[in-house]
């Protein structure tokens, strides 16, 4: 008899399953679980510049055997996914998600979206959790448990501590690259001035093992994080899944697409489609934990509760990129060894309204290759190539996330006819204006940091790949919501352990909180079942 069936092997699913398995319960994890489809990968651990100068087959992973890595057309959601990671966004033959104004990148991969994520893990503060029925204090033990499990590096006691709160389990910070150190030095020299303008900067917290941790790492600073996982230093949910699979009371059931559930006397029956055989199967368990991403969990819940025509709220951080030149650093030497992830994290709150603060992440541009920039440059390609070679070391991408709150024009709805999802996502005019105004103000301050913005790229709604809010957690007893313990209202035995339960989205990346909340839901369920 299965005590708990968990749907999804992403960041949420594996951390919900962990405490249940540790409590000795029989747990099955149902997953579509697409695997890396054998796309060519970099050969062994080698540094980016070394591969570039020596490997005759590099075009196979940099461009893809079918040249799928070439970015023609508009910048779209998932532009960061390189050919070796394209399988993460592979669809399944199923009723589609449709929208005119929102690009939802859903993953059916083993390990979900975090098989290719950027690993920035800012925790939510009490301000971020305003309107939630749980506090930072309640989440703290789960943040700590996840930090110990996955390995998080960073510094305590810097200017970002007021945004992050303390963490007792940090690994040493990652080595900063030349742009990152330059920016932080400039910032620290005039910290009071920047604070007066509402800018706070520091080293990011990253799910990156800077020393050996749980059999992984340390990070070798090969600058290949977008292409492969050679040193296993960036956390991927599949590592936790591998640990779970070594436990006798855990079963992994891949190639299964969960469709609906039905509560019955003493348990839950989940109907799944076996993608290998094409047949329908039924899995019986004592309890069900939905952790297959906010949109999929919302869809399964709405279909199972006969609420297909009811619109569900949908949240996603609006996202903008700013290519910038660090012009004050021009001509300075650049260190070759570095990682490709976020170098500096910033929070910008000029109007002292921390709920509306934006998050800006600084990446140095190198390992995604020059040709991707050519399209965005106004210069002739021939001249752009020559110039970029000389200025590339001083080139940064500033990725800006804004918070998101539920609204009557940001909704998803399950189609009754085929079970697919329609999304309509239109922020209000005042939300859009506030976003532009804040970005303009940020650019003025960035200029004082020596950053010259060269353009603004808006990849469209949904492109942050942060989705939440479809079955929000609340104290109010409303249908299609979740209790503070994670139980889906209208059910007795179904729990929500992914972003679906987040009632709001601060500008911070949500995945660390997804994992901590999943751990919380799993742990509470384990405790109640063990009583």
């Amino acid at each position, binding site marked *: 008899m299965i005590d708990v069936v968990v749907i999804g092997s992403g960041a949420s699913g594996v951390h919900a399953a962990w405490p249940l398995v540790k409590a000795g319960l029989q747990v099955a994890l149902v997953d579509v679980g697409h695997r890396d489809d054998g796309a060519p990968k970099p050969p062994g651990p080698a540094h980016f*510049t070394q591969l*570039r100068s020596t490997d005759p087959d590099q075009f196979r992973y940099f461009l893809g055997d079918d*040249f799928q890595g070439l970015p023609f*057309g508009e910048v779209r959601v998932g532009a960061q996914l390189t050919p070796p990671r394209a399988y993460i966004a592979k669809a399944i033959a199923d009723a589609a998600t449709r929208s005119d104004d929102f690009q939802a990148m859903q993953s059916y991969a083993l390990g979900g979206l975090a098989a290719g994520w950027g690993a920035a893990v800012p925790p939510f503060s009490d301000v971020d959790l305003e309107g939630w029925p749980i506090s930072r204090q309640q989440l703290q033990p789960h943040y700590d448990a996840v930090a110990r499990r996955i390995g998080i590096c960073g510094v305590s006691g810097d200017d970002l501590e007021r945004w992050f709160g303390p963490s007792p389990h940090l690994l040493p910070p990652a080595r900063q690259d030349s742009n990152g150190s330059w920016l932080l030095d400039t910032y620290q020299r005039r910290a009071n001035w920047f604070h007066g303008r509402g800018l706070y900067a520091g080293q990011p917290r990253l799910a990156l093992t800077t020393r050996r941790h749980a059999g992984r790492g340390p990070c070798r600073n090969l600058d290949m994080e977008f292409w492969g996982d050679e040193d296993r230093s960036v956390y991927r949910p599949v590592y936790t899944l591998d640990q779970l699979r070594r436990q006798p009371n855990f079963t992994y059931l891949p190639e299964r697409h969960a469709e609906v559930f039905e509560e019955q006397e003493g348990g839950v029956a989940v109907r799944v489609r076996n993608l290998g055989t094409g047949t329908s199967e039924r899995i019986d368990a004592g309890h069900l934990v939905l952790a297959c991403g906010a949109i999929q969990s919302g869809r399964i819940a709405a279909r199972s509760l006969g609420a297909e025509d009811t619109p569900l709220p949908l949240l996603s951080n609006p996202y903008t990129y700013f290519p910038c030149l660090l012009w004050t650093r021009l001509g300075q030497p*650049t260190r070759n060894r570095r990682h490709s992830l976020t170098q500096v994290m910033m929070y910008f709150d000029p109007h002292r309204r921390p709920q509306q603060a934006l998050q800006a992440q600084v990446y140095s541009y190198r390992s995604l*290759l020059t040709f991707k920039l050519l399209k965005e440059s106004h210069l002739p390609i021939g001249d752009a190539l020559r110039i970029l070679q000389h200025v590339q070391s001083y080139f940064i991408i500033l990725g800006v996330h804004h918070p998101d709150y539920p609204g009557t024009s940001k909704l998803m709805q399950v189609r009754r006819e085929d079970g697919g999802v329609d999304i309509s996502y239109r922020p209000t005019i005042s939300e859009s204006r506030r976003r532009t105004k804040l970005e303009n103000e940020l650019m003025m301050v960035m200029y004082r940091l020596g950053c010259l913005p060269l353009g603004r790229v808006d990849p469209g709604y949904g492109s942050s790949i942060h989705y939440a809010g479809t079955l929000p957690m609340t104290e109010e007893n409303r249908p299609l919501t979740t209790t503070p313990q994670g139980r889906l209202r209208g059910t007795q035995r179904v729990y929500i352990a992914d972003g679906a339960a987040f009632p709001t989205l601060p500008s911070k990346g949500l995945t660390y909180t997804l994992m901590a909340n999943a751990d919380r839901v799993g742990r509470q369920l384990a405790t109640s079942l063990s009583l």
Partner: protein
Amino acid sequence: MTMTANRALHALSEECRRFARYLLDAEPDSAEVERYARAVQTLPAVQCGPNERLLSAARSPLLLPFLDAGTSYLRLDCPFRRRLMLAAAIFEASPRHADRFLPCETSIARMAVMGLWTGLRMAVLVPLGVLLVKALHRP
């Protein structure tokens, strides 16, 4: 292979060589040429009819810089510009040309000279290029 297919392949190989000379002042090797031809034949995004006038004009190495400047200035997302970008990507992902793409350190003085030179080039190439592209391009 039919005669027509052979001719098309030959034209693509020549196009690749012209682009390499223009972008890198270098000759591509046979693997790069083959890769370019295969990419054009595989990717619908870079394909066009035989009468694409910008690509026909790009057969002249003299016109190439003007066409590049004109299409960039007008931000014209056309097969010519896409193919030039494709060629750049193929050359970049080849160890032979790595030193032409990997970042290099340069003094500020040299950058200033480069900036000035590019500015002067643009002052000539862009207006003439825009005229040329407008005359040739039919959306």
